[in-house]
């Protein structure tokens, strides 16, 4: 029996290790690869510990005359758009989630599931009319326009995610506030939101993450180089016949690393909100 247990535990840890390697190895590999020289990358001589670690791939990204022209600009734009989307989407989804959580109108569960359906809805199908509409509102090739559309993409899922955070805050707390004369909106802002702060931050970071990686709408709405975000910037780079792999790997690392650093500290709240929402 003891031996049997030991075998089982060992197999469990092996399975977990394989799963983690499958999930993480590609990122480790790119990170390692980005510190190799171009010639090593081009001959396939990348090893887990670089013989001569170099940051040569990162330098041209910021020296505009050498490599990708506006890389620092892309990073800046991604931050502006991502933070703008996070802020706007947090406000809108907090209101929506409060509505779903605190009121009991017919069809609210259908509405919550509809939010999740919107999350998986094919955006490419509506790309043309959205482009036309943005053109009419004079929001083509503008960061504000991108923030607006990214908010529309992120807010429904964020609303769905936040709802379970609000649900876990007892209604009694609010009721006592309303006895003291607080209005509904006041009690939402001063009582529920602070208690649901981890959820709100998580929903905001989710919005930032989704905006950071969004490609389709940026590609059809942005035309000037100065307004490009990271995915479009490095996406253009891969379209070349001759790919400068070294710089591309450096750019790749700079695109995913900030995202992971922001998301990982909040991942446990994200998981909690997601799992509670999923079984509603």
């Amino acid at each position, binding site marked *: 029996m003891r031996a049997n247990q030991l075998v089982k535990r060992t197999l469990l840890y092996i399975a*977990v290790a394989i799963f983690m390697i499958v*999930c993480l190895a590609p990122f480790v590999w790119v990170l390692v690869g980005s510190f190799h020289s171009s010639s090593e990358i081009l001959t396939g001589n990348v090893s887990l510990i670089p013989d001569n670690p170099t940051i040569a791939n990162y330098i041209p990204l910021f020296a505009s005359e050498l490599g990708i022209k506006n890389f620092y600009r892309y990073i800046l734009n991604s931050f502006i758009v991502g933070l703008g989307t996070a802020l706007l989407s947090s406000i809108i989804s907090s209101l929506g989630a409060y509505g779903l959580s605190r009121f009991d109108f017919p069809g609210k569960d259908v509405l919550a599931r509809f939010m999740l359906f919107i999350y998986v809805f094919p955006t490419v199908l509506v790309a043309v009319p959205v482009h036309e509409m943005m053109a009419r509102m004079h929001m083509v090739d503008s960061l504000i326009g991108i923030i607006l559309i990214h908010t529309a993409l992120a807010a429904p899922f964020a609303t769905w995610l936040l709802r379970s955070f609000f649900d876990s805050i007892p209604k009694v707390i609010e009721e006592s506030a309303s006895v003291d004369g607080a209005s509904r909106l006041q009690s939402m802002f001063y009582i529920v939101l602070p208690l649901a702060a981890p959820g709100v931050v998580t929903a905001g970071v989710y919005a930032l993450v989704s905006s950071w990686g969004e490609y389709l709408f940026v590609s059809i709405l942005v035309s000037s180089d100065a307004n490009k975000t990271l995915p479009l910037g490095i996406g253009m780079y891969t379209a070349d016949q001759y790919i400068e792999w070294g710089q591309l790997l450096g750019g790749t690392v700079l695109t995913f690393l900030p995202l992971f650093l922001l998301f990982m500290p909040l991942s446990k709240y994200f998981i909690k909100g997601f799992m509670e929402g999923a079984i509603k």
Partner: protein
Amino acid sequence: MSKEYRGLIYLAPVMLLIGLFFIYPAISIIRMSFFETRYGIEFTFAGLGNYFQIFRDGVVGQSAINSLIWTGLGLFLQLSIPLGTAILLDQKFYGNTFARSAMLIPWITPSVIVAILGRWMLEPSLGIFNEVLVNLGLISESINFLGNSSIALPTLIGMQTWQFIPFGTLLILSALQTIPRNLYDSMKVDGAGSFQLFRYLIFPRIGPMIGFMGFLAFVWNFNVFDKIWLTTQGGPGNATTTLPLLVYKRAFKTFRLGQSSALASIMVVALVAFGVFYFKFLWQPVERD
């Protein structure tokens, strides 16, 4: 107005966004599908002309088949693998919290990064995949994963599945956690093995969630555009052109807006119908204690 309906006021902003960026465009794409466009701007009424054209078009047929393979094979992998990984993460082991967080990384990775990772690691002459496979003696010469028209689509399905696993795993895991621990123990005391546990305890509990995940995976797979576009642009030839790619190519590359809209309209109507059908007839909530 009942007091409870005031909740809808709070939902107004998000519904406005959905209306503006999803519902209105979906209606407008259906309207556009009845018009012929030339040079992208002039509209002439074409009736069902665009629909007749796309049904006669061989590329549309091939894309539909590709989409079928893409969603079908993808769905099979995306239902089975998360089931395994979720049961794995439901066990008690050292580092479980870390594993759950780390697992999410592929999901939050931007498509363009997934595309670059794939293109680099699968490159025939300098990619790690071919190097490992050759060194292990599994293949004698490099495979051009993304350049070979019969391997490219399955390869992309693999990449898509890799990115879907965290989402699916979390969904299944959330259902697994509604099963009280003592049920496992009492079944084990009664002499139930792993298979019996799965068949009589786990599966009935998570069945509805698997259905829900399948529904989301189906719609989501259908959605995939940027990953394929940034990896193969639908090539080689049209080997990885799925319907969303064709909608995009017709609209933004060859400027056949009418045809693109007709194709998109069919997909919008089919997806919405499928969504309504699912939630009306198939959806079941997960049991909870």
